[in-house]
């Protein structure tokens, strides 16, 4: 099983290695824009909890960016491979277990999310942000990448066209990017909306990352919530891989 996970991962790594330069460059665009627009531009006049707004949003930007990259590294390619190119069949015909495929794909998506987060951390320091990066921070980041690459796998197996995948992005990821404690703390929102936001996985990631980056304790409940998301999405993913044969 480990070997099969490695095989699935190896294929994605091969493709990433070929495009690593382009991958890194394109990943720099949106974080730079966020940092310039919200951190430098808007942030000059904002004070959050007696701190600098740039320091406040960097963990949020890392959370939302690792979400987007992990999701899009798995979602679109897997959906295309299932619906258009039919390359998924190569894995379905092979004598490997569905769970190996799911884990391999999720890990490779998470790796891309981590690489792009690394880029943002460098950029953020270059722009003069202060954040405490320790092993808890990395752990939360890894969990966040895993949550969204496994969510992408589920979405890719459910959506039957490229357009539906794009809609999923618009209806699920885009609102999360703005609402899940990325740019502001959702304390002042109406109660029902706040409850809803607090259930969403990205909220846990940004709250945990910010707490750690500002020198606080890692909120264990958030870590647990993310683990629950990961296992649920992977479980559903395996089930969908089996169901695709019906």
């Amino acid at each position, binding site marked *: 099983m480990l*070997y*099969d996970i490695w*095989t699935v991962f*190896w*294929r994605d790594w*091969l*493709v990433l290695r*070929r495009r690593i330069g382009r991958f890194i460059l394109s990943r720099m665009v949106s974080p730079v824009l966020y940092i310039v627009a919200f951190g430098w531009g808007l942030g000059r006049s904002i004070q959050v909890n007696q701190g600098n707004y740039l320091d406040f949003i960097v963990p949020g930007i890392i959370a939302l960016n690792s979400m987007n990259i992990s999701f899009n590294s798995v979602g679109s390619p897997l959906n295309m491979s299932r619906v258009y*190119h*039919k*390359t998924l*069949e*190569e*894995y*379905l*015909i*092979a*004598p*490997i277990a569905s769970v190996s495929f799911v884990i391999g794909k999720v890990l490779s998506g998470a790796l891309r999310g981590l690489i792009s987060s690394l880029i943002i951390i460098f950029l953020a320091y270059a722009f003069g942000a202060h954040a405490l990066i320790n092993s808890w921070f990395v752990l939360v980041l890894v969990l966040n990448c895993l949550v969204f690459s496994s969510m992408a796998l589920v979405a890719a197996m459910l959506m039957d066209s490229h357009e539906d995948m794009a809609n999923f992005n618009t209806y699920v990821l885009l609102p999360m990017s703005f609402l899940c404690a990325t740019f502001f703390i959702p304390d002042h929102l109406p109660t029902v909306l706040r409850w809803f936001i607090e259930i969403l996985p990205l909220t846990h990631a940004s709250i945990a990352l910010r707490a750690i980056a500002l020198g606080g304790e890692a909120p264990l409940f958030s870590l647990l919530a993310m683990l629950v998301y990961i296992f649920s999405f992977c479980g559903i993913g395996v089930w969908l891989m089996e169901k695709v*044969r*019906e």
Partner: protein
Amino acid sequence: MIRIEGFSKKFGERTAVDNLSLKIAKGEIFGLLGPNGAGKTTTIRVLTMLTRPTAGKIVIDGCEASQNEQHIKAVIGVVPQHFNLDIDLTPWENLELHGRLHHMLPEVRKQRIEELLKYVELDDRANDMVQKFSGGMKRRLMIARALLHQPKVLFLDEPTVGLDPQVRRRLWDLIRRLKNEGITVLLTTHYIEEAENLCQRVAIMEKGKLIAMDSPLALCQQFGAYVVEWADNEGTKTNFFADRNAASAFAGTLMTTTTLRQTNLEDAFVELTGRKVAG
């Protein structure tokens, strides 16, 4: 090698394959014919473990599909109808991925990849991107991929659709060579001459049902060894005759241009299915 008993597949209300039973011997090239939508691809998908049957039993290489799917997956090679190569990878990488998925040892894998790329005459293009390949090259690479792990059964779904006649003949030679190596081949096609050229036995399906199964020759002779073909206002008509003299005498009575020839599998096919398939 392959045994299908009472196999049916339903998609909701629609029955794609209805109570199909057949046996294919080791080393046989077996053709599955039928008009579009007859259930050939569904049959192949079920035999290659991509879809599960609604009812019936499938045994390949002595293993029942419902019980030992992984063993069957290890002994079959599949060339699907659509090009499903990984276009982000080179031919070599496509084959290496396949070898890894089939748990081949690195040194065996490397040797087989070299061998097969030569076999399908793509060894000089091993490191180009698959995206730039022509249809014939992609098809050949897919056959190499299907053969990499030395399967006992090869499934080919419409292997020569959309290919030049030259490439098609090269593929035919390749398939015949496989038979000599003892591989069982099941192919679907709607090019009748392809089945006639390659297959020892063919099964004809229509609307999910098996309507005939025999050698191409026996299927032809079932209606008569000779056929007279002519056209009138209503379209092309044919009449079958057991011997040439009777056919010739009948042709003499017609006032239009007629053709007298030996019955081919296409005549038998049209007679059995009642409509012509698009070539």
